[in-house]
């Protein structure tokens, strides 16, 4: 890792374009995070790097905006009764261990195969995890929508029901989001995987939220809110680690935070208007689109490692540009779905209130 003196020289000069860009991406990322519990980092980190911020500093600065953002989002959603603090903290602690282990693996891969090897590992992790989990989440959301039961209270799936039925004495803890006791031995690998993914692709929530829904049996709204607690714990630990090496550019973190706190409040408000399956829709759509974005980069890294025929410079530039554009599209589309859902939800809410007033109920 860089030493402090080297890091100081890596602080970039900020101009107005940088400020507006970071604020804007922060807002959109915050909006999506407030709604599904995570997101935004996959655009912010490469975005900062394109401004000239060194990779490690971009990761560190992103992380240092993530934990205060998650804290504000978690407090907001706790007011709506959506947060399971106990589950979030327990998963957060094992996630922290996952972050450390994930970072260690990254360092070893980088030492053995260089930057291209490390990038290939990250891209393959993106593609595999997003294809499996994202595809499953999106398919489930579509199935729920088509079944016409999207208004009904979510029921735990078969796996979650089995996990809830297992009794391991001395390890059973009651969680309000599950409304039952489960063994914390089941939460440890889930938290660990969330942390490992966060250290690898910067968005642990793509494992954390689906695992709370499908493995533990938490409702989507509570899972996405509880993910904010996990993100806070992971982000705080990670930021401290990076800050101890002088790698956090607090200006970048706080400018992103300026936009993302507007977004996260709005995203959190949005969850009170939508049907639970909308959380799965937004998460699934983003995951599947990002999957294509990262998939496009795989040939670039394979070529850099000499595993396939060398690609021309123009092809590499084209693939990189299209990949980043698709990633931005994923985030914007997610934000659009959230805003649209809020818009429709508010309209329905107003109609219901007007009807109730006309009938003298209010």
């Amino acid at each position: 890792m860089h030493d402090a003196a080297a890091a100081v020289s890596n602080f970039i000069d900020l101009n107005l374009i940088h400020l507006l860009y970071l604020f804007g991406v922060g807002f959109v990322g915050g909006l999506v995070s407030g709604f599904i519990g995570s997101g935004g980092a996959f655009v912010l980190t490469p975005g900062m790097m394109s401004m000239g911020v060194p990779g490690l500093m971009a990761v560190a600065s992103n992380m240092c905006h993530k934990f205060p953002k998650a804290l504000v989002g978690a407090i907001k959603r706790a007011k709506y009764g959506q947060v399971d603090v106990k589950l979030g903290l327990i998963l957060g602690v094992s996630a922290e261990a996952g972050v450390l282990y994930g970072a260690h693996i990254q360092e070893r891969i980088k030492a053995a195969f260089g930057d291209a090897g490390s990038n290939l590992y990250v891209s393959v992790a993106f593609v595999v995890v997003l294809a499996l989990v994202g595809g499953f989440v999106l398919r489930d959301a579509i199935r729920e929508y088509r079944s016409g039961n999207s208004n009904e209270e979510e029921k735990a799936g078969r796996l979650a029901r089995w996990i809830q039925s297992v009794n391991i004495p001395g390890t059973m803890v009651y969680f309000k989001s599950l409304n039952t006791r489960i063994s914390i031995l089941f939460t440890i690998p889930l938290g660990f995987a969330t942390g490992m993914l966060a250290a690898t692709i910067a968005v642990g929530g793509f494992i954390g939220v689906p695992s709370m829904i499908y493995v533990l049996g938490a409702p989507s709204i509570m899972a996405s809110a509880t993910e904010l607690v996990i993100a806070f714990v992971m982000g705080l630990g990670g930021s401290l680690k990076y800050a101890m090496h002088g790698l956090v550019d607090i200006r970048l973190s706080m400018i992103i935070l300026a936009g993302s706190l507007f977004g996260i409040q709005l995203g959190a408000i949005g969850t009170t208007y939508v049907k639970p399956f909308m959380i799965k829709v937004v998460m699934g759509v983003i995951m599947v689109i990002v999957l294509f974005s990262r998939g496009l980069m795989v040939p670039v890294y394979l070529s850099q490692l000499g595993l396939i025929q060398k690609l021309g410079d123009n092809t590499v530039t084209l693939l990189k540009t299209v990949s980043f554009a698709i990633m931005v599209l994923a985030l914007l589309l997610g934000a659009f779905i959230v805003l649209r859902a809020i818009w429709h939800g508010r309209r329905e809410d107003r109609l219901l209130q007007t009807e109730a007033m006309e009938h003298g109920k209010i």
Partner: protein
Amino acid sequence: MAYSSVKKKPVGKMLVTGILSIGLYAMLLSNQDKVNEIFGKGGWYALLPIATAFVFSFIHGMFTGHFWTVLGIEAAKKKKEVK
């Protein structure tokens, strides 16, 4: 007397927290070089960016919360009926 559901909007709170928030950002950006130098030292100085993040999130978080409330964008009043 007719019942009114109209709540008073927290305009004053929004203005106060907004001014405080702008003040924090102005302070940070007008002392960039000094901040970078000190915060980039690492070690125990790591507590400074962490503390800064908490302070900004507290003040700016309150401001953004009031901002949406003043604009009339608030959480749904009650759980929607199942249709």
